[in-house]
């Protein structure tokens, strides 16, 4: 599909004065794509030039369309000397390459210069005409949609979730090329920005090709990162989850499972291979009984029929044959994949069957000579560590990096297997680089998945039914996936407090979001484990060895801290766990953040008991008992604060904040059926007891103290690092996304581990306190998706970057809206028929009585709106479009409270460098970075607005690398951000739109008429 790119330069405004004599500017514009450049006329003597250029047309390959950014340079014409550059705009035209996203990019873009920042704005219109050309051997992957969102995007449903896609590209870093010695900082920065833009484009194209190979049409949970490896180069890598998504267009498309070949053909640009239809790979029943894994795939012999009628008798026995069958199926589906990983953190209902625990792996690598130790460990419920063999590689090509990651992924996979799981969800990868040492990390949550979404639609309906019935909502995912008799690690197991049929662990750690159907008691809260370890400065291998020796201890301590803090909160599960290990010259930092909750299905956590090792003198004893009392008081206080009143066993339903009727009946039934097991439960509850902390030296004392220093947020504030706060669901529409950065300088005199820990702890706590103070006007509110990033830019500097969103909520409506909210959150990726029935009900309650249309009609139109073809698209544009600068919301969440996302316009992935040689004049480091981050936000908003959007969801600042040299009055900063540009419509405005567009409804339902099974 070659295409024609058309660009028009309309006007400029607020240009800087380039000619001191006249206080004006003679501006013109260069438009460059690939190797072709066009120029506008010079618009003499104006700071607000009106070029109104012709359409500049570039005839290009689609491969180039995907890789290259459109580069617009604004210059000041100078008759006698070289023209001065005012600044540049890079426009990623990718969103124009798939039909469902934006059709035109048009708007005011800030003109950006890496030395001066934003210098005025330019109005540009960009269009692409694609020619259809079904070349099978093409290198491009136009048409594959990319989403940063780590759940199925709101206006789509997942037909198939194919699985993991990854790719990386390596290049020399322009900053380290010989030419950098002779070129200006500006030229060097621009070369870097352009190169990274190109590399991201290439990477995205390659990932797209992989998706097409898998016959998918989209990548969800797309995470792209840069590793600035210095001398050894620049790595751009990305991971994501390939899916086949189906647009939720009309109710007709809702009902069918959408697996008909004709539909598929339309969805995926490539034709199906003949094998596609009969690829399903269930194991034969005989093998299932033994529970052994098979490496070969068998053709199906409808195994489901054999098991009908056996399900109910299986309670209490390792999940019974049904579970085994399920595992077999999933396993076989997943075994075709090299890595059964999913970057998603939230899933369609029924997708997640069981969760095993967090699996993570780390590896220390040397960037120049590759000859280094590797370390891998499992986190979560296990604490097993082992050192891998020393691997050697000898080239610095992408293959090397690929091999590094492959090795880590392999490790993750085997950890998951050890937990009895065949898949890893909530998977992510990261690096920390200091000089030539690089720590590669990967983590995720081992899980057992429902094969329904993984295979190409050959799973029989009756099996699905059975799965649904066998998994009690709200607790199923907590049930252990591993074999009770053959546990991979020591754990207390009890019968599930919810259904009483299956075993559950005493605590559960995961990297995913809280499943929407999970039954939670009270509210959740953010907890963090913070840790520093000094290390000697060393070179190369000695350094790498020192680091890998320290890592197990750090992981262990982080885990212990998390466990202690979790108990202190009186909670029993962690979601969204993210452990970041950062390497510096002379220290290692560990920061773990997670959202703690009380899962009704898990046992009540025991308290913390303190034991002194040497009970010698009385004052010590007294001290211990004093501490014990403080801890017990804190636990009691926390329980009150977070409203954790775990119900008595017999009344547990009443206390649950999510009394879903369907679930309730199931609960009651299960209780009556298994009444004799209750006694057994109680017994086991008695056995499991307090967590003992031994205070045998000052270190341990410190630890206990630090436990108590964490101050809860002021009243009216809650915080979590997941998408939604467990226990709060009546969000109001006010949101405030922010980034806060702090750098502290450590005094080098007293650098002990304790002092370091205290400094780091204070830094994080103070930062949180500042946030609470700053956002106090939003109370009651919740900080969601709190994302801390730690870096060690220099010897004695610690940098912490936080991005989060504050969302207000209504304190009073909590109870009434609980149910509606659940229904709403289920819409995320609705496939179930019952939701279809619930949906109109919900709308019914929302819509005004005076509404001229019956509610059902409103629903269909609402669903139709994302289709947004032609004129309708304009109507759904944000209402603020006619004001001078439209408001663009930004949020790290995948949704906007009180609003409906009607269209995804494409991903935003931007990389900026800013440098200054007049740091003092720009307000010092704080002034410099403050201005830069504000500018980055502005550029993101401008791009979204130009795409026709009014919000960025799943926004993330992936990198914020800040370097300063105050002596030279210089500083440099690199920022990489990404997110999904969307159009949202307030729920209150939806009805207005639906009245405007009664005809759209008709058309959509006619078009979506193909009914499939």
């Amino acid at each position: 599909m070659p295409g024609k790119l058309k660009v028009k330069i309309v006007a400029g405004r607020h240009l800087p004065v380039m000619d001191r004599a006249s206080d004006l500017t003679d501006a013109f514009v260069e438009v460059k794509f690939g190797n072709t450049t066009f120029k506008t006329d010079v618009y003499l003597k104006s700071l607000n030039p009106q070029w109104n250029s012709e359409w500049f047309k570039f005839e290009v390959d689609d491969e180039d369309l995907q890789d290259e950014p459109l580069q617009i340079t604004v210059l000041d014409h100078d008759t006698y000397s070289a023209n001065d550059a005012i600044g540049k705009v890079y426009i990623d035209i990718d969103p124009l390459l798939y039909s469902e996203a934006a059709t035109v990019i048009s708007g005011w873009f800030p003109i950006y210069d890496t030395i001066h920042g934003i210098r005025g704005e330019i109005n540009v219109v960009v269009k692409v005409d694609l020619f259809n050309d079904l070349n099978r051997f093409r290198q491009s992957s136009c048409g594959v949609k990319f989403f940063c969102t780590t759940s199925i995007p709101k206006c789509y449903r997942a037909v198939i979730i194919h699985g993991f896609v990854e790719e990386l590209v390596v290049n020399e870093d322009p900053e380290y090329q010989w030419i950098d010695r002779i070129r200006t900082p500006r030229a060097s920065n621009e070369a870097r920005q352009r190169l990274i833009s190109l590399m991201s484009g290439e990477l995205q194209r390659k990932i797209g090709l992989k998706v097409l190979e898998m016959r998918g049409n989209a990548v969800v949970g797309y995470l792209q990162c840069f590793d600035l490896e210095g001398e050894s180069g620049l790595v751009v890598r990305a991971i994501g989850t390939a899916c086949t998504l189906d647009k939720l267009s009309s109710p007709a498309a809702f009902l069918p499972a959408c697996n008909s070949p004709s539909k598929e053909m339309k969805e995926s640009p490539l034709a199906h291979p003949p094998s596609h239809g009969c690829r399903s790979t269930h194991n034969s029943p005989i093998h299932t009984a033994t529970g052994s894994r098979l490496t070969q795939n068998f053709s199906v012999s409808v195994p489901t029929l054999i098991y009908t009628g056996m399900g109910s008798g299986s309670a209490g026995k390792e999940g019974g044959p049904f579970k085994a069958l399920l595992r077999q199926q999933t396993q076989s589906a997943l075994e075709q994949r090299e890595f059964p990983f999913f970057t998603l953190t939230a899933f369609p209902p029924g997708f997640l069957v069981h969760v095993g625990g967090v699996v993570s792996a780390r590896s220390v690598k040397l960037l120049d000579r590759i000859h280094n130790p590797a370390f891998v460990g499992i986190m979560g419920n296990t604490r097993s560590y082992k050192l891998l063999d020393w691997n050697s590689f000898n080239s610095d090509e992408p293959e090397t990096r690929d091999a590094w990651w492959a090795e880590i992924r392999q490790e993750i996979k085997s950890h998951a297997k050890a937990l009895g799981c065949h898949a890893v969800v909530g998977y992510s990868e990261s690096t920390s680089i200091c000089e030539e040492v690089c720590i590669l990390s990967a983590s995720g949550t081992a899980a057992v998945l429902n094969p329904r979404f993984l295979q190409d639609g050959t799973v029989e309906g009756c099996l699905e039914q059975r799965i649904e019935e066998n998994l009690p909502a709200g607790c199923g995912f907590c049930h252990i996936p591993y074999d009770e008799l053959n546990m991979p690690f020591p754990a207390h197991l009890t019968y599930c407090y919810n259904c009483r049929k299956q075993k559950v662990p005493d605590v559960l750690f995961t990297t995913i979001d809280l499943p929407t159907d999970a039954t939670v008691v009270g509210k959740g809260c953010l907890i963090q484990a913070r840790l520093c370890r000094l290390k000697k400065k060393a070179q190369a291998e000695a350094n790498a060895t020192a680091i890998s020796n320290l890592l197990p201890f750090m992981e262990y301590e982080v885990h212990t801290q998390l466990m202690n803090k979790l108990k202190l909160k009186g909670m029993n599960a962690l979601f969204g766990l993210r452990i970041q290990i950062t390497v510096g010259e002379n220290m290692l930092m560990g920061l773990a953040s997670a959202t703690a909750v009380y899962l009704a299905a898990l046992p009540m956590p025991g308290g913390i008991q303190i034991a002194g090792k040497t009970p010698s003198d009385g004052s010590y004893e007294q001290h211990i008992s004093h501490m014990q009392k403080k801890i017990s008081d804190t636990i009691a206080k926390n329980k009150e604060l977070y409203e954790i009143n775990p119900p008595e066993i017999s009344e547990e339903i009443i206390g649950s904040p999510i009394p879903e009727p369907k679930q309730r009946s199931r609960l009651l039934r299960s209780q009556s059926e298994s009444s004799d097991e209750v006694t057994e439960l109680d017994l086991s509850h008695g056995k499991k007891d307090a967590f003992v902390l031994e205070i045998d030296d000052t270190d341990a004392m410190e630890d206990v103290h630090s436990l108590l220093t964490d101050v809860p947020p002021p009243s009216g504030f809650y915080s979590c690092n997941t998408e939604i706060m467990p226990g709060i669901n009546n969000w109001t529409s006010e949101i405030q996304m922010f980034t806060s950065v702090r750098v502290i300088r450590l005094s080098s005199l007293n650098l002990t581990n304790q002092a370091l820990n205290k400094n780091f702890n204070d830094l994080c706590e103070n930062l949180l306190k500042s946030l609470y103070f700053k956002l106090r006007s939003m109370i009651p509110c919740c900080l969601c998706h709190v994302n801390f990033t730690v870096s060690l830019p220099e010897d004695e500097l610690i940098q912490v970057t936080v991005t989060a969103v504050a969302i207000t909520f209504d304190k009073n409506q909590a109870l009434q809206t609980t149910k509606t909210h659940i229904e709403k959150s289920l819409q995320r990726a609705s496939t179930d028929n019952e939701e279809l029935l619930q949906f109109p009900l919900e709308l019914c309650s929302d819509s005004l009585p005076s509404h001229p249309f019956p509610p059902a009609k409103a629903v269909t139109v609402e669903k139709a709106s994302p289709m947004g073809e032609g004129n309708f698209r304009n109507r759904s544009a944000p209402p603020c479009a006619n004001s001078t600068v439209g408001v663009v919301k930004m949020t790290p969440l995948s949704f906007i409270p009180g609003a409906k996302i009607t269209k995804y316009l494409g991903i935003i992935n931007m990389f900026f460098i800013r440098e200054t040689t007049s740091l003092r004049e720009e307000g010092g480091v704080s002034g410099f970075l403050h201005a830069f981050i504000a500018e980055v936000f502005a550029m993101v908003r401008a791009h979204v607005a130009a795409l026709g959007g009014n919000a960025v969801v799943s926004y993330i600042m992936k990198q914020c690398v800040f370097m300063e040299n105050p002596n030279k009055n210089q500083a440099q900063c690199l920022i990489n951000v990404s997110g999904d540009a969307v159009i949202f419509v307030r729920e209150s405005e939806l009805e207005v739109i639906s009245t405007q567009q009664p005809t759209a409804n008709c058309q959509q339902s006619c078009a979506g008429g193909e009914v499939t099974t």
Partner: protein
Amino acid sequence: MTSELDIFVGNTTLIDEEVYRLWLDGYSVSDAVALRVRAGILEQTGATAAVLQSDTMDHYRTFHMLERLLHAPPKLLHQLVFQIPPSRQALLIERYYAFDEAFVREVLGKKLSKGTKKDLDDISAKTGITLKSCRRQFDNFKRVFKVVEEMRGSLADNIQQHFLFSDRLARDYAAIVFFANNRFETAKKKLQYLSFGDFAFCAELMIQNWTLGAVGEAPSKPDSQVDDMDMDLDKEFLQDLKELKVLVADKDLLDLHKSLVCTALRGKLGVFSEMEANFKNLSRGLVNVAAKLTHNKDVRDLFVDLVEKVHLGPQFVEPCRSDHWPLGDVRLFLNQYSVTVHSLDGFRHQALWDRYMDTLRGCLLRLYHD
């Protein structure tokens, strides 16, 4: 442990009104922190002093970055860097250009030049307003003056258009610009009892009636090259005012005028006898003020003259007050005094008289207070 860098950037720029006020008032960060502590914010929020310091620094940095945009308010509306809701933008502009009564009284009518700027530290010492705040207010006056100086059309409208002020603030600035341009004396001791509001009121009346802009729409002067329509007084009009002298110079006319006024007001005025006794002096005062406006120097002294030289007994405004003429009586008298002129057959400058007297009457009534 020292914080090297500490920033907070919101997608929507956070504006703390309280901190904004402290910043506008010219307090340093440490002073502002101290003032916030004194206001009891720590107790209310449970925050620490360090948090407050960081928060204040952050807001100050934001305001500092916004200041450049505030110098040209339309830029604030069109810029892309700070996402600020329109109501907040309006608040930022309005507060930034707001001024202290004490300060404006010091510079009202003065030339907005470097010389005056040098006196700002004296003003600061005298008024207790920080020098920083004085500078901002002075620069605001000067900035607005420079922008609208050369423009045609309504002064207040021009200001509103280019600075996006509220109606009230735009009219205040119109008065300030008008006074600065015509250099009316306002600092004399005798004028100290007058507020900025009094002067702004008079300015508005004069702009409406006495400037070129006031007759600008008249077809007689369609495309006159006179630019500052609303800022300069109509020179021709001022010249013509000499003609009004006939009202006091012509004895017959003066007597007729007096008898008509007295007939009309007999029994209605509490201070009738004083008025009757002083009528000639009063009339002379009112008309002489008009006649003096021919010279630039005397134009500047308009307000001094109004207070000192309009005769009622020896003086107008002041004596009235010392004799306790009630405001109602003054109004009655002035109304009757100006209306009655229409009945003087020998007097030919009725239009001129109205243009002069309507404004003057308004001003006098406004200035007539304690």
